[in-house]
């Protein structure tokens, strides 16, 4: 895998050095840094005091106290709704949903309230709120703990949607999300918590919202992806390199606003696009990317824009069934080869 190259810039200090850490630790560091920097930042959710279900809050209550790393009742609607009110009233809450599926208990609070309050009130209030929703398939968690609904949130005016794929991005984007004055749906992938990678040193290295990342350069075909599928697509691209297919992998990182310029520039170069995601294919965010590129680059494409996504089925429990819901590097490679014919 080639080193990360950024299509977007990072802001703040220019990092000279990096430290290897996990995706989970990178997020923990980001939250701690932002809490040190800004006394208005706090987090709330179930079991965060003991470190959160994935350890992503480990040690934070010891440093910041139980008021700023606030354990909550099992009340997702309240976690979200309270965060909305607390954001309106001068703080910057990070609301932890534990598993993105549980956020479905709090959709009114997110979609009808958080996303619209600023607008409905004509700008009299702001809702600087980050909603963390760990997403995606984790082995054998079955249908109520595995969904990827990022497309939903891209469809909701007022929301920013972020889905980081690397430790560096999970640090830099979580920091940007916390500094955003608008509500951000921040979707970490459950299967990435333990992934490691280099993270730029310095406590003020942000990754800007809305900028894609060039995960792997290439010339023949563009693969646009995000979240857990990024490493899958990079793997596929590596495999394809041995078959003389040079695939460029773009990690969108932010799904709304998404980096159309970066995607269009790449596809203009390659003439071919595959959009790959773990979420259900039908009405997934890949449809938005595919529809946009097909329209904007009409007549300049060498092949139809292809999409790869999950079958429209709940995530099954048993390994051989669950495998049917996953999209693998082999699936990506096959789809790319299909584009090259």
């Amino acid at each position, binding site marked *: 895998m080639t080193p990360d190259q950024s299509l977007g810039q990072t802001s703040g200090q220019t990092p000279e050095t990096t430290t290897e850490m996990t995706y989970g630790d990178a997020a923990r560091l980001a939250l701690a840094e932002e809490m040190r920097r800004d006394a208005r930042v706090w987090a709330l959710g179930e079991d965060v005091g003991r470190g959160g279900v994935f350890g992503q809050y480990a040690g934070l209550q010891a440093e910041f106290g139980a008021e700023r790393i606030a354990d909550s*009742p099992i009340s997702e*609607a309240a976690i979200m*709704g*309270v965060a909305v*009110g607390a954001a309106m*009233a001068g703080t910057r809450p990070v609301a932890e949903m534990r598993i993105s599926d549980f956020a479905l208990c709090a959709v009114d609070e997110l979609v009808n309230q958080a996303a619209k309050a600023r607008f409905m*009130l*004509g700008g009299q209030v702001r809702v600087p709120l980050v909603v963390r929703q760990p997403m995606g398939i984790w082995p054998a968690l079955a249908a109520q703990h595995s969904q990827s609904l990022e497309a939903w949130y891209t469809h909701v005016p007022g929301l920013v949607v972020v889905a980081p794929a690397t430790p560096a991005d999970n640090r830099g984007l979580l920091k940007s999300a916390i500094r955003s004055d608008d509500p951000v749906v921040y979707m970490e992938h459950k299967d990435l918590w333990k992934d490691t990678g280099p993270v730029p040193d310095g406590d003020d290295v942000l990754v800007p919202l809305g900028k894609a990342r060039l995960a792997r350069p290439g010339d023949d075909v563009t693969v646009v992806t995000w979240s857990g599928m990024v490493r899958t697509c990079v793997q596929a691209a590596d495999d394809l390199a041995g078959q003389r297919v040079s695939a460029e992998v773009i990690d969108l990182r932010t799904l709304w606003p998404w980096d159309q310029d970066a995607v269009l520039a790449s596809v203009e170069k390659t003439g071919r696009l595959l959009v790959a995601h773990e979420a259900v294919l039908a009405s997934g965010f890949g449809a938005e990317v595919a529809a946009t590129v097909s329209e904007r680059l009409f007549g300049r494409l060498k092949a139809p824009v292809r999409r790869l996504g999950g079958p429209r089925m709940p995530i099954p429990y048993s390994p051989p069934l669950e495998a049917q819901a996953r999209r693998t590097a082999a699936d990506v490679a096959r789809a790319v080869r299909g584009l090259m014919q």
Partner: protein
Amino acid sequence: MEPHAGGAQRNLDVERLRRQYLDMARIRAFEEAAAAAVAEGTVLGLIHPYIGQEAIAVGVCANLTRDDLLLSTHRGHGHTLAKGASPAGMMCELLGRANGVCGGKGGSMHIADASVGMLGANGVVGANILIATGAAQAIKMQGQDRIVSCFFGDGAVNRGPFLEGLNWAAVFRLPVLFVCEDNAFSATTRTEAMTAGPGPAARAESLGVPAVAVDGNDVLAVDTAARDLVAAIRAGGGPRLLVARTYRLSGHVTIDPAAYRPDHEVQERWADDPIVRCADLLRQAGLDDGTLAGDLDAARDEIAAAYRFAKDSPWPDPREAFTDVQDAGGPVMEEA
């Protein structure tokens, strides 16, 4: 639940009561003007009139400062006025004008005036309970010396946020006054038929929130009860619930004839009109009919002027539709 002693026994502060009378009259006049505007077609949206419930907003808000926050419902004009918003800015909002409090983006169901701490009506029953709770948590966390008040209807106690919000407020001992306005109806259905158990106060107490019930048509009783509850909250005692029994004298919305209510019931309840009752109290305290009528006239004049102002106010620029959505990734107006 402690039954609350009516205010009548206390020493009467006539000036205070008269200000409340005037505020109630202003709300009544506003709602009548809004209903007329709907009939006239200058207001297109749905209006949920607060007619008959004025004593609650006024009695509670008499105990709030401008810094205190308020979260309201779909039936929010009364709360907004009582919290100190200007009728002109509100009327402009109802008429969708550029100088409406929300720039015309919200209308009646999202009316708000952050400059007086009024953070929003809400189109979703019960949603404000959680938002109010969160605002109270922010206040506590920031060590501020203010409280939140949160109004909701008897129908809202059948939604999950009532449980989640009151439990949360009690667990974190937050400075929030919940006010349940029991006007007997959930839209066109009687709440009673859809609500099991002894009622909102018992529910609140089961969630660790002490509750007091008052006659919500008696502004003095509301004022007195609210004063005690607000004092307890300001003293760090955590959340409280005030249950105010009242009656929705109008339809659910202005265009609802509310024919599902028996005539005699409506007549009886009109006889209990909180404004008339307040006038009686003031009359007993020595004010003459002319003064009282003068207050009503003043209220009506103020609102009439607000309505005229609103009608003469400009429409928002269509480009305004594209602002206040979000900083990154907001919509862009297409060229026609």
